[in-house]
């Protein structure tokens, strides 16, 4: 009896130890991820913040690292994102409304769209670039223009916008819709006057986050042939352009050390743009969240 008790005690003690070790290992794994994030940001910041000044923001790319700037890339990014949003937002929200409000009864058509969207979200972004290259740049003859870039990006962002908008539409209480129907409103009237006003902040928040995802995409833009050396601002949808990620990629791939600093400074600006978009999304959510659940 006594022997067994001791055995049990030893077993329990061993178990407790492995328990503690495992907790430290698992917590350590989590810590590893968080520390990696911190190091990444600190490293880029230390490399780049000294290069960050007004001259950098207002200069065109240059062959000399100390005179180079991000003006054309920054303007190009804003220009392209604007066009992309113009193209992708209405279509994405439209598709989301269809899937949430019209396709409630699952028929083959809505199932096809749903399966397809789930798969599209997993297609590597560079393949969208190949599609854009063949379809928009070559076949439609748009050339390596802002418009071709925006169309490509719109296709890339569409699945994410649809998924985000669907979630926002889904949380609208059925009681509101039923009330509207009971008053004799048609389906579209219900959607337009009841569902959309309530879901809109959520749609906007989700879409801003979706756009912030693709703003950092360089691969599809390289494939359709956006250039890194653009010493002018895009003035029409058909002019050639560059975007921040491509400018950064170009600077990173050069041998001169000076351009690495430019790349780090460019990264800081890109991260700042992303941070602003995310902040806007969070602000919108905070501001309108209460109204959602009235």
């Amino acid at each position, binding site marked *: 009896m006594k022997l067994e008790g001791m055995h049990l005690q030893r077993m329990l003690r061993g178990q407790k130890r492995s*328990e503690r070790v495992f907790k430290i290992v698992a917590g350590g794994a989590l810590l590893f991820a968080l520390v990696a994030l911190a190091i990444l940001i600190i490293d880029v910041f230390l490399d780049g913040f000294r290069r960050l000044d007004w001259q950098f923001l207002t200069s065109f790319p240059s062959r000399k690292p100390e005179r180079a700037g991000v003006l054309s890339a920054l303007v190009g990014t804003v220009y392209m994102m604007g066009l992309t949003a113009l193209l992708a937002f209405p279509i994405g929200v439209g598709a989301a409304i269809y899937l949430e409000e019209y396709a409630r009864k699952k028929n083959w058509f809505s199932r096809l769209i749903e399966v397809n969207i789930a798969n599209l979200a997993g297609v590597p972004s560079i393949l969208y670039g190949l599609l854009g290259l063949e379809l928009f740049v070559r076949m439609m003859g748009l050339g390596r223009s802002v418009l071709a870039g925006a169309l490509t990006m719109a296709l890339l962002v569409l699945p994410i916008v649809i998924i985000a908008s669907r979630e926002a539409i889904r949380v609208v209480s059925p009681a509101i819709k039923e009330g509207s129907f009971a008053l004799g409103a048609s389906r579209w009237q219900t959607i337009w006057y009841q569902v959309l006003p309530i879901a809109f902040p959520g749609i906007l928040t989700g879409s801003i986050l979706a756009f912030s995802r693709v703003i950092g995409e360089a691969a599809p833009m390289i494939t359709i042939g956006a250039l890194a050396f653009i010493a002018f601002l895009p003035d029409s949808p058909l002019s050639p352009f560059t975007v921040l990620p491509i400018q950064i990629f170009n600077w990173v791939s050069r041998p001169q050390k000076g351009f690495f600093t430019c790349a780090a400074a460019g990264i800081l600006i890109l*991260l700042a743009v992303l941070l602003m978009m995310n902040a806007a999304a969070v602000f919108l959510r905070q501001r309108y969240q209460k109204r959602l659940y009235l």
Partner: protein
Amino acid sequence: MQLTETLPLGRTQEGGFGFSKSKVMPSFPVSSRRNRQKVREEAIRVTLASCGFLSVLTTLGIVGVLLFETLAFFREVSIFKFLTDTQWTPLFADKHFGIWPLVAGTFLTAAAAIGVAMPVGMLSAIYLSEYATDRFRKVVKPILEILAGIPTVVYGYFALLFVTPLLQRLIPGLSGFNALSPGIVMGIMIIPMVCSLSEDAMYAVPQSLREGAYALGSSRLQVALKVVVPAAFSGITASFLLAVSRAIGETMIVAIAAGQQPRLTLNPTVPVETMTAYIVQVSLGDTPTGTIEYKTIFAVGMALFLCTLTLNLVSQFLRERCQEQYE
């Protein structure tokens, strides 16, 4: 529900207030206003449906473009050579079109990424789902998600200028471009995805299973490793497959830090080239349409598409099965 209860007895909700269509509609002349509204409603429905259909067209577009150019490619290069040649040199005078060097590069970087992302992501998921308090989870998860939101060029910069020099101090003879460093960084990028998918799967494991194990005297560790993880296995496998798919399709990190030298090797310390990096390399040069170099990027893209599609489909299937299991 409430609506049915308030209806007078004997009337169903579908029949709705006695206005059943078959009885009422013929006796009223259909007003033109209502007719117009019907047309409008239908037009709107069709418009919205076509918005949804555009996503299907996107898929068809990708498949179509890849197929078209790949077939053109195989008219010039035999599929046999594509699959058996051990050299990939379409940009040189002496052209060889063996896909394997690119596959090897892709495999190496992806393996390194998985080697980082799977253990770290899963352990983090176990910690978050089995050990952490709710408050801790609420603070940490969004911070972890930031990792997934950072643009990949930034990771490329980090791999080339921070991780590679760091590794060079640990591993003598590590080349400035290699498969290891971008692989590790790619792994860090994928951690949040693995973590949140695995955590979802573990969260879906019913509490009663855990409580049963506790009642039998199991420790937390035993519950986590012997009950929760096996029960969530299909979900965890799904996250693994999705992580592989993401690592294979990732472009900028490897294009920046892995080099541009396709070679058939399993050595992670020398420069390699992945499928995606090759597409970038060709795109950066001005390759005219119709040349064999132009077609190669679509053939490589097709290989990439088939790999990721398969992984995504299997992953999705596993996740759906995992969801159904406990409902």
